[in-house]
Structures are given as structure tokens and as C-alpha cells.
């Protein structure tokens, strides 16, 4: 049997090769065939999950509720020191100095990255803004959001903090952050589907010990993470409960 591994479509393009290397590393350690499938949108990924075509996933926190509670996925690990935080960003020359300066009708550039979009909308609430009184423009990538702000075609943009920091200094210097979330516990996680559930301990052991040998360390470097932390099922359940307080 060939298992299916996928990664939330919101990770940076610089890490595609890293996830391929991770998949190869895991196949060798487990002596199992694992096919790495990348979906170019959340919709495409959700369809694959609905059709039970995913057995291991590096999941966006927004999808964790559906994966764990509807599809029976179990938690394995989360990346160390890598919470998902959102930023609300404007052009550096913008007269807007705080979220409260934003008015109804503001043009918001966002992506289909669900947790960042949700956190961004929450951070607009103090200005009495919601989907009913702003103009949302969905962009395919964070660099396109930066372009929206630089051209002045959007007033503010939502960024994943990590993606904002990954942009070139020249771009970042022309932009200005109004607010960055500091939530800490909303983050991506590695989740195992029912077909691999009986291998959970073995897979967790391989992943959590990646820092113990040079090959594993090399894979972590290519993923841009320091290592993996054990994730209890209750940790991911708590994150799901917390996320449920943030969605209408």
C-alpha cells in the first residue's frame, strides 16, 4: 500500500524541496511507500481529505478540527518555536497609524490561508470592521499582497508573520506593520490519518529524534525548523476548542 502525505498549501515556496526530502527520509525510516502530493489550494486539499486520500498531513490549524473530529486524525508533533502569527500591514507611507484609523470600505488584501485570514479579521474588530463593511481582495501569495500595498490598490494586507519576514528587506522597508498577533498556541501540526494510526509511536519516535543524527538535522534545516515537539492529542483538542471561539 502506498500512503499519501501532504502539506498545507500555505507554506513558503522555498521549502517545497525540504518537504520532498522529509518524505524521502520518512519512507526510508519506515520502509513504506509514501507518495508526497502537493495541492495548490486549500479547496483541492480539502477535496483530497474528504475522499480519504490523505494519511499524513502537516496541517493548517484551521483544518485541525475537521481532521481530528470528523476524520479521526491523531496528533504527532508540532514544529518547535513556530507559532502561526498574523500581521496587519500597510504601505510605509500610509496615513493609517493604527487599526482604529481604518474606516468602513477599507480595501483588505488577503490570501486563502484560513488561520491568517481569521486572525487578521479578528484584529480588525476593534475598528468595527468585518466582512460586511470591508472590500476583501484575495491574492494567491503574500508577495502579491505586498504588491497590492506598494501599488496602493489595497489599504491593508494580512500576512503570516513568517512569510512577511521571508520577503526581501527592500520590500519590507516599504511596508509597515500595524499589529502582530501574539497568540502562541495556534500552529501547524503533523497529524496521522486512521490508515497509519497503528504506526503512531514508531512515526513519532522517528520524527522527534530527527535532531539526533546528521541526516535528520539536514532535513530539519531544509524545512526551516529547529526540530519537532511532541504533541499530545489533548494539546490539539485544546487548540481546536480555542479556534472554535474565534470563528462565527
Amino acid at each position, binding site marked *: 500500500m502506498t500512503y499519501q502525505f501532504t502539506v498545507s498549501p500555505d507554506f513558503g515556496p522555498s521549502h517545497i524541496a525540504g518537504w520532498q526530502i522529509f518524505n524521502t527520509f520518512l519512507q526510508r525510516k519506515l520502509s513504506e511507500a509514501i507518495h508526497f502530493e502537493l495541492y495548490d489550494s486549500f479547496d483541492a486539499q480539502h477535496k483530497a481529505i474528504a475522499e480519504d486520500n490523505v494519511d499524513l498531513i502537516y496541517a493548517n490549524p484551521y483544518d485541525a478540527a475537521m481532521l481530528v473530529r470528523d476524520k479521526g486524525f491523531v496528533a504527532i508533533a508540532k514544529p518547535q518555536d513556530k507559532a502561526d502569527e498574523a500581521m496587519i500591514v500597510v504601505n510605509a507611507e500610509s496615513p493609517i497609524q493604527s487599526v482604529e484609523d481604518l474606516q468602513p470600505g477599507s480595501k483588505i488584501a488577503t490570501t486563502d490561508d484560513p488561520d491568517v485570514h481569521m486572525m487578521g479579521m479578528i484584529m480588525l474588530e476593534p*475598528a*468595527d470592521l468585518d466582512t460586511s463593511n470591508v472590500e476583501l481582495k484575495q491574492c494567491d501569495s503574500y508577495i502579491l499582497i505586498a504588491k497590492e500595498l506598494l501599488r496602493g490598490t489595497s489599504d491593508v494586507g494580512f500576512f503570516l508573520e513568517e512569510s512577511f519576514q521571508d520577503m526581501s528587506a527592500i520590500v519590507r522597508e516599504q511596508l509597515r506593520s500595524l499589529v502582530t498577533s501574539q497568540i502562541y*498556541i495556534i500552529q501547524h501540526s503533523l497529524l496521522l490519518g486512521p490508515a497509519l494510526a497503528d504506526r503512531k509511536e514508531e512515526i513519532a519516535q522517528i520524527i522527534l529524534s530527527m535532531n539526533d543524527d546528521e541526516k535528520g538535522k539536514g532535513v530539519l534545516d531544509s524545512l526551516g525548523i529547529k526540530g519537532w515537539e511532541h504533541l499530545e492529542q489533548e494539546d490539539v483538542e485544546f487548540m481546536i*476548542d480555542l479556534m472554535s*471561539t474565534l470563528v462565527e
Partner: protein
Amino acid sequence: MQVQDMKPEDVTGDYREQTFTFFDGTKRKVLVCDEEVPYPEGRLIVSVTDPSGIITHVNKSFVEMSGFSEEELLGAGHYILRHPDMPPAAFKDLWDTVRAGKKWSGYVKNLRKDGKFYWVYATVVANVRDGNVKSYTSVRRKPSRKKIQECEALYPTLF
């Protein structure tokens, strides 16, 4: 339930004194000064209580905004934050809603250890495990100033 009277030495500036009697008969003397502490940007204030309202988990933002230490908060009743300007009907609605298995949201004025206050937009959900309510999670975020003004006008009429 563990909840102590507020102490004058913890409170800064002028204050007024009031005694609460909570739903379980517990009494608490609170010292209230009319100074608002702004909600910290970008943060969520998170706590978990057991089904009877005893605090079992708080995050760093909760500790910082409440003015209490984590040790003082854990084991205390959640009404340690109750401000006398909050109508009891709001909390009855909260408990009735979450005990019915639904999500509750509302604007809440919270009392700090130092007698100051802060407004939040709070959402409370039941944490269901294996079909049973194990605990409740409460998450607060920065409210809109307009909504606070509406509550400042409405809440005194609900006593």
C-alpha cells in the same frame, strides 16, 4: 471556593468599596477604581475552568492583564475578575448558554487585582471529550470602542 477580599494595599489611587454575594453564597469585598487598562494589541486572553467555574489554566496574557499571579489564579473561582458594573444577568446568560452546549459571546468589564478595569470581547465554549463536558475555555479579544460605549449605556439598566 477560594476567593479572597481585595486588599487596600494592592489598589492604586482612589477606590470605592462593594461587597458581592455570588451565586454559591460566597461573599467578596472588592475595591474599585475607575481607571481603564488598555487591552494589549494582538493578544488573546485565555483561561480554562472546570465545570464549576474553578480556574485550571491561564495564559501569560491572562496573568498580565488580571494583575494576579498564576498561583493566585489557579484554583480560584472565575468570579475573581467580576466587576460590580457587570450585571449578574450577563453571567447567568453565559452559564445557561454554555451548559446548553452552545457558544456564548459578550462584552465584559473585568476587575483587576489593583482595582482597575479592562474591557474584553469574550467567547466561552464547552470542551467536550468522549461526549462529556470536561471543562470550559474562555477566550477574550480586543473589543471595539463603539461596542464598549453601547455596553456602558446598557449594562446599568440590567440590574
